[in-house]
């Protein structure tokens, strides 16, 4: 199951206690995500991408404009919009199995079927660690557990806030493959916030590049490559160059002359 997400002229202003004033985190953001799409929000820190994600999740309300999910305006959190953060989402006092059970019980989808939870653990490759506590797992395993817990309640939209940011690059690449696989199997809409250009190109169908202060959409790029993608391919490199240039991190290609 999946749903469309639409943002119309969304703006967000935060009050700043230190300056006794306000700060515009987002300004005039227009976004339309079709059901079942994989979209990345890419930008440096401070460009409001996390704020945008939180607005879609329902954790923040937009100061201007409206946010719509599945045809209905977004009012508060909902199990149909699952959330995976960088850290600190797993409940430390519950085992992996307990965490998934918590999610299922909360959304009243729990049919006291142990096998259902076992299925999810299998999918995440955590079957052996079902009764382990989060502190006993590595960072990659913890994120896998958080992912599978969010997926267990079958959300229409999965919102990922730099889910692989705290992991080393090898674990990150492995989990990127897993994320892609889960997306292709579940067909839920995926909206991912990342600061890693390669990750955005590897996973998403569309990349929304944002600029900071105030947060605006700078450019929307399509990634017309087929899955699974090759990180070393020419298309990949070309797109990376294009994005970095758009974000002013790469100059024009210079020729070296030897005289």
């Amino acid at each position, binding site marked *: 199951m999946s749903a469309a997400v639409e943002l119309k002229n969304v703006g967000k202003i935060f009050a700043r206690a230190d300056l006794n004033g306000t700060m515009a985190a987002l300004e005039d953001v227009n976004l339309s995500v079709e059901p079942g799409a994989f979209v990345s929000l890419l930008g440096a820190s401070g460009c409001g991408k996390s704020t945008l994600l939180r607005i879609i*999740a329902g954790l923040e309300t937009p100061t201007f404009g409206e946010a719509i999910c599945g045809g209905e305006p977004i009012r508060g959190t*909902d199990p149909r919009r699952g*959330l995976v953060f960088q850290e600190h989402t797993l409940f430390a006092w519950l085992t992996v199995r307990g965490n998934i059970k918590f999610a299922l019980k909360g959304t009243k989808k729990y049919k006291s079927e142990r096998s259902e939870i076992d299925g999810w653990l299998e999918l995440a490759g955590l079957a052996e660690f079902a009764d382990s506590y989060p502190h006993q797992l590595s960072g990659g395993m913890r994120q896998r557990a958080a992912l599978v817990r969010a997926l267990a309640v079958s959300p229409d939209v999965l919102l990922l806030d730099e889910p692989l940011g705290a992991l080393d690059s090898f674990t990150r690449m492995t989990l990127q493959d897993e994320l892609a696989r889960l997306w292709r199997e579940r067909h839920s809409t995926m909206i991912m916030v990342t600061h890693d250009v390669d990750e955005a190109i590897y996973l998403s169908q569309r990349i929304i590049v944002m600029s900071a202060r105030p947060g605006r959409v700078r450019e929307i790029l399509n990634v017309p490559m087929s899955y699974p993608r090759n990180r070393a391919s020419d298309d990949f490199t070309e797109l990376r160059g294009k994005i970095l240039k758009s974000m002013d991190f790469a100059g024009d290609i210079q020729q070296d002359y030897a005289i």
Partner: protein
Amino acid sequence: MKRAERAMTAWELRRLESAPKSKLRRAARRAAALLPAILAGAMIAEYKLVPAFPKYASNPIAYPISNMYVYFAAAFGAALLAWFAVSLVSRRAHEKLLLKTPLYCVLIILLIAYDLMTLKTGKLKMPYFPWADRILLAIYEDRLMLLDCISHSLVLLFSGYLIGGAAGLVTGVAAGWSRRVSYWVMPLIRLLGPIPSTTWISIILVVASSLFGGSVFMIALGVWYPVTMAALSGVGNAQRGNFEAARTFGLGSARLVFKVAVPAAMPSIFNGLTQGMSVACTALMVAEMLGVESGLGWYINWQRGWAEFARMYAAVIVICLTFTAVNFALTLARRRVLRYQEDWK
């Protein structure tokens, strides 16, 4: 986590890794493990063979010398021998025994020295330094009364502790969760908290309708403050991500408090409960010395009236053992509830 992994500390691991390889050294270590048992035998020998100070030996009515000491030493020695026997088959038992050997040896040597200085040579004078046997005899003779006192004390202690702890949990969690509650509770905490609960003694003595009730109140008040502060800060420090994730699973405010805030605050709450136990034990002793009708504090006071130092020391030992047991129970509870944490010792 397997218990075997948790039981070994880094120190023990290092000892294990530096274990001697030669057969001679291993035999020497085995023999060393036998030393405390041998010394326990020496304890008995010293007691029986070295003659008592003439002043004490000649007056058995005023200065009774019994065999309690022998029984105690024999029991200790027998336990050590049993441990040694087990250590011959179990590697872990051997490592643990070897670890404790120096401690037990010094302990026994100190006991032997104390006996020599009190009973055998009279260098440390009565009535302030009763010999070990006298204290053991005092415990034995008054065992029924001591048991009664223990049960009275524990009833008072746990009544106050549980009431104070529960009240502290409720106020702490509520104040940590709701700003409105915090508005009313914080001034109360700031005012009452720093006042030691024993300050209220005079007022309680006048106002309370029963001494038991008044004492329970005093203990509960003492326990309330650390538990409230701990619960408050525990809830305040809970990770925001936990709450947000729980909200996406459809939990409303009420369930968020019980299912997320409280479990997240548990480590802090247990710190508060441990502190509270310490305050409760202090308040208990004070409350009992004021005029309850039974209990360990009352017993010490009563024996002081008779200048029965041996019985007073006996009561102190009993208090030590009782509170050690109580704290051990608390530790077990903590270990069970917080089993998801790493390496809590």
